[in-house]
C-alpha cells in the first residue's frame, strides 16, 4: 500500500456516509485504512468543530462521543503515510441507530499544542479533554475547567508523552517529607468557588461534604465533593484518579503478550472479559483466525465473569441500601463459580488466560460436569435472591425513580451497557455486532424503559440468567479443535511444531524472548463487557510492543453523569445511584 492510495477518499468510503461528503468537500479529508473497518478521517483542527456538530445533527446522528484520546506521534516510524504532525487528537463517534462508529483525527503541532474544546457539543467531552490535557498536555481552548483529572494536581509533566519515563527506576527514589505531605494535602482541598458553587444561599450556609476517597460505599477509591443543603444534594463534583496506574503507559513498554495480565486488572471484576477486546484487536491487526473451539471457550469464560461481576453488583446494591445478608449468599455462590474458573484456568479473579491467537491451555477433563452442576444450581438460587431483594418493598421505595435518566441523556453522556439498556435502548454488542461467535447463541437482551436504579438492578439480574443460558449452550455444543491458532504471531506458539523444524523454532524463540512482532497498523475492538462497552484501540509501528494502546472503559463516562442525576436528591439516594451504576475504580482510572 502506498501513501497516496491510503489517503484517498474512495467512492466506497463516500457511500458509507454520503451526508458528510455532501456537506463538506472531500478535499478537506484524508482517509486512513485501519484494520477495524471504522471509517477514519483526518481533518484539520479548524474544521473539526463544524464536522462534529454536523455529524450530530444528521438523521440517525452520530450523537454519542464514544471516545476521545490523544496520541504522541513524535516517535512514529511510518510518519509518511498519514498527515501526521507531532500529536493527534482522536474523536470517535458512535451512532446507536446505525450501529456504526466513525473516527476523526486531528493532527496538531507541538507549538502551539492546542485545539478548540467540544464540551458544548458533547457533555462527556469534559473529562476526556481533561484527561488528554493531563496525560499529553494538549490545551483545549475554552474548556470550562481544564485541570488534572487522573493525576494529582501537584504532578509535574504529562506522562503519556514519549519523553516521559515509563519506569519508576528511571526517576529518583520517591520520598515524602513533612513539607511535601502538607503540600499534597492542601492540593486535595476542595474549593467550591473553583467549580462555580456558592457557599451559601439567602437563608443558610451549605455544607460541603467530602464523600470518599475512603467511604464504605464508594466501591474503591472514589471521591465526590458534595454541596449539601441539610441532606439534600445541591451539586456534586466527582473526583477520580486515585486508582490510576498508568495502564496505557505500561502498554507501551510491555510486549504485546506481556500486557495481557495488566488488562485483567483494568476492570478487576471482569477477569478474562478484559483480555477479550485486547486480544481481539490484536488478532484483527495480525489477521489471526482462531478455531471455533477457542471462540466458544472464550465466550463461556467471559459469560462466567459477567455473572461473577453481576453477582457482586447485586449483593453490594442490596448492601448499600442496608440489606446485610444477600451479599454473603452471593459471595458463597461466587466462590462456587470461582472454583470452576480456578479448575479451568488455575487462577480465580485474574486468570489472564486468553492468548494472542488462542488460549493458555485447553479445557481440563471434567470441566463440563462442574459447569453443568453450577448452571443447574444457580438459577434457582437467583430466583430466591430476586424475591429477597427485588421484591422487597423497602428496596423498591428506595430505588424506583431514583437516578432516573432518559435514553437521550444516556447517549449524551456516553453511557453504555446495562445503564443504557435500562432506558429502553436495545444496544448490546453481542447482538448488534456479534463477535467470537455470539451470533450462534440463543439468548435475549433484557431491556427496561424506566431508566432508574431499580431498572438497572433488575436488568442485571436478568442478564445473569441469559448468561447461564449461553453457558449451557457452550457446554452442550463445545466444538472440537485446537486451542491455539497456527499463526506465526500466536504467543506463545504451539510448541509441538517447533520441535520439528528450525523455522518454527526460531519463531518460537523470538516470540517468547523478544515478543511477537505485530504488523504495522491500527486496530480496535469493542466488546460488551460486564459494565458496558469496553474497547481497546491499538497502534502498532511494527515492533514487539504497541506504540499506543487506548483503553476505552465503560465506567469512566458513567461516573461523569453522577452530578446530573443526583441533583436535588438526598444523600442516601446518591448512595443508591452509586450502587446502581456498577463501576470499578480501576476501570475508571486505568
Amino acid at each position, binding site marked *: 500500500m502506498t501513501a497516496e492510495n491510503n489517503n484517498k477518499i474512495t467512492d466506497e468510503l463516500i457511500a458509507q456516509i454520503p451526508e458528510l461528503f455532501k456537506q463538506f468537500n472531500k478535499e478537506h479529508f484524508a482517509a486512513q485504512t485501519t484494520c477495524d473497518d471504522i471509517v477514519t478521517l483526518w481533518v484539520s483542527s479548524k474544521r473539526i468543530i463544524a464536522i462534529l456538530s454536523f455529524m450530530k445533527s444528521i438523521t440517525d446522528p452520530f450523537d454519542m462521543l464514544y471516545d476521545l484520546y490523544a496520541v504522541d506521534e513524535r516517535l512514529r516510524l511510518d510518519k509518511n503515510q498519514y498527515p501526521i504532525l507531532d500529536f493527534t487528537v482522536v474523536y470517535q463517534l458512535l451512532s446507536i441507530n446505525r450501529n456504526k462508529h466513525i473516527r476523526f483525527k486531528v493532527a496538531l503541532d507541538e507549538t502551539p499544542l492546542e485545539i478548540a474544546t467540544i464540551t458544548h457539543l458533547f457533555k462527556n467531552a469534559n473529562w476526556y479533554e481533561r484527561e488528554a490535557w493531563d496525560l499529553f498536555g494538549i490545551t483545549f481552548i475554552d474548556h470550562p475547567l481544564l485541570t488534572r483529572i487522573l493525576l494529582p494536581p501537584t504532578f509535574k509533566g504529562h506522562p503519556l508523552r514519549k519523553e516521559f519515563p515509563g519506569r519508576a527506576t528511571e526517576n529518583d527514589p520517591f520520598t515524602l517529607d513533612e513539607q511535601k505531605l502538607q503540600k499534597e494535602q492542601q492540593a486535595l482541598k476542595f474549593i467550591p468557588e473553583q467549580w462555580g458553587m456558592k457557599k451559601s444561599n439567602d437563608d443558610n450556609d451549605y*455544607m460541603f*461534604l*467530602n464523600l470518599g476517597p475512603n*467511604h*464504605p*460505599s464508594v466501591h474503591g477509591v472514589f471521591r465526590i465533593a458534595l454541596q449539601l443543603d*441539610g*441532606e439534600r444534594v445541591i451539586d456534586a463534583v466527582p473526583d477520580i484518579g486515585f486508582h490510576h496506574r498508568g495502564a496505557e503507559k505500561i502498554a507501551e513498554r510491555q510486549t504485546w503478550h506481556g500486557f495481557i495480565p495488566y488488562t485483567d486488572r483494568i476492570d478487576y471484576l471482569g477477569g478474562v472479559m478484559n483480555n477479550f477486546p485486547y486480544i481481539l484487536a490484536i488478532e484483527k491487526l495480525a489477521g489471526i483466525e482462531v478455531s471455533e473451539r477457542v471462540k466458544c471457550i472464550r465466550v463461556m469464560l467471559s459469560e462466567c465473569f459477567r455473572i461473577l461481576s453481576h453477582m457482586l453488583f447485586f449483593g453490594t446494591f*442490596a*448492601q*448499600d*441500601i*442496608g*440489606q*446485610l*445478608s444477600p451479599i*454473603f*449468599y452471593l459471595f*458463597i455462590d461466587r466462590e462456587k463459580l470461582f472454583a470452576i474458573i480456578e479448575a479451568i484456568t488455575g487462577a480465580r479473579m485474574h486468570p489472564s488466560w486468553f492468548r494472542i491467537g488462542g488460549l493458555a491451555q485447553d479445557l481440563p477433563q471434567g470441566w463440563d460436569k462442574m459447569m453443568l452442576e453450577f448452571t443447574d444450581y444457580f438459577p434457582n438460587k437467583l430466583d430466591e435472591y430476586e424475591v429477597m431483594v427485588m421484591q*422487597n418493598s*423497602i*428496596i423498591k*421505595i*428506595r430505588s424506583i425513580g431514583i437516578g432516573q435518566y432518559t435514553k437521550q441523556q444516556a447517549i449524551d453522556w456516553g453511557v453504555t451497557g446495562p445503564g443504557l439498556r435500562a432506558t429502553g435502548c436495545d444496544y448490546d454488542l453481542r447482538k448488534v455486532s456479534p463477535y467470537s461467535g455470539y451470533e450462534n447463541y440463543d439468548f435475549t437482551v433484557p431491556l427496561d424503559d424506566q431508566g432508574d436504579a431499580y431498572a438497572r438492578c433488575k436488568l442485571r439480574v436478568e442478564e445473569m440468567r441469559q448468561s447461564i443460558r449461553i453457558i449451557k449452550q457452550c457446554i452442550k455444543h463445545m466444538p472440537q479443535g485446537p486451542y491455539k491458532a497456527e499463526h506465526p504471531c500466536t504467543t506463545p506458539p504451539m510448541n509441538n511444531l517447533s520441535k520439528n523444524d528450525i523455522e518454527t523454532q526460531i519463531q518460537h524463540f523470538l516470540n517468547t524472548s523478544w515478543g511477537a512482532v505485530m504488523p504495522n497498523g491500527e486496530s480496535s475492538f469493542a466488546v460488551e463487557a460486564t459494565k458496558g462497552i469496553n474497547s481497546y484501540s491499538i497502534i502498532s509501528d511494527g515492533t514487539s510492543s504497541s506504540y499506543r494502546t487506548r483503553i476505552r472503559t465503560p465506567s469512566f463516562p458513567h461516573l461523569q453523569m453522577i452530578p446530573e442525576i443526583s441533583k436535588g436528591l*438526598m*444523600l*442516601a*439516594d446518591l*448512595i443508591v445511584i452509586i450502587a446502581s451504576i456498577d463501576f470499578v475504580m480501576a476501570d475508571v482510572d486505568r
Partner: protein
Amino acid sequence: MTSWLTPLIILIVLLLLGAWSIWLERRVLALWQDRLGPNRVGPFGLLQVVADMIKIFTKEDWVPPFADKVLFIISPMIVMIMTLLGFAIIPFAPNIQIAQFDHALLFLLAISSLSVYSIMLAGFSSNSKYALLGAMRTAAQMISYEVFMGLALMGVVILADDFSLSAIVAAQADVWFICYQPLGFVLFFIAGIAEIHRAPFDLPEAETEIVAGFHTEYSSMKFGMFFIGEYLGVILISSLITTLYFGGWQGPFLPPLLWFILKTGFFILFFILLRAAIPRPRYDQLMVFAWYILLPLSLLNLLVTGAVKLSLLG
C-alpha cells in the same frame, strides 16, 4: 439477699449480658448468612467478648483535637447510664427488681428521652460532618418516634389501670396484653427499634451512607460504651416488651426468672433477625412513616382501647 446486693448483681449481670449479646448477634447473624462468625476464642467463641474487651480497653483513648473535649467524653457515659437506669424498674421475677415505684412507666419514657442527648451531643461535639449528619438524623428520628411510643404504651396503662410495671405484670395473670393490644405491641416494637436505632432504623449510624454517623470519631472504650449501650438497649426494649405485653415473668412449670429470660431472649433474637433481613428506608421516608402512619394508628389504638374500657365499666 440483702437489698444493696441485688442491684449490684443485676448491674454486673447486665453488663456481661450486654457484652455477651454482641457475641450472640455475631454468631446468629453468621448462622443466617451462611457464615461461621467468631468461633475461635474459647468454646463456641464465647470468650471472644473477653478478647474484644481486652483490646478495646488497651487501645489509645484518643480525643480528636477538633472536638469539644468535655461533651465528647460525657456523651458515651450518658447512653450507658440512661439505659442501665431503665433496667431499675424492670421486674425480672417476683422479688428481683431494683426499684418499685408507682410511675415507673413515665420514668422510663423520661429516661429514654434523655438518652437522645447522648447521641446528639456526641454528634455535635465531634465537630465532624458525618457525625453532625448522624446527630441531625437522630434528633429527628427519636423525637418523632418517642411521641407514639408513649401513646402506644398508654393502651397498656389503660388496661392495667396503673403505671407501675409490677402491677402491669400482675394484671396479665390471666391473659397477656398482647391479646388485647396487638396493634399497640406492633407500634411499641417499631418505636423501640427506632429508639435504640437498630436496623432497619439505624439511620443515625448508617455505615453505607454516613460512615458511622454520630460515633465516627469515637474509638477505644468510648466507642465501646456506645456499642454496649446499643446492646443494652436491645435487652431493655426486649424486656419491656416481655413485661408489658407478654406477661413478664409469668408462665407455667418453669421458674419465673427463666420465663423472663426465655421471653426476652426470643425478642433479642428477633431484633437480630430484623437486622439480617430488612434494608434501610430513607430518612424522609422514615419521618413520613412515623407522622403519617404510625402516629394516627397509635391515636386510634388509644381511642379504641379507652372506649372499650369505658363501655365495659359501663
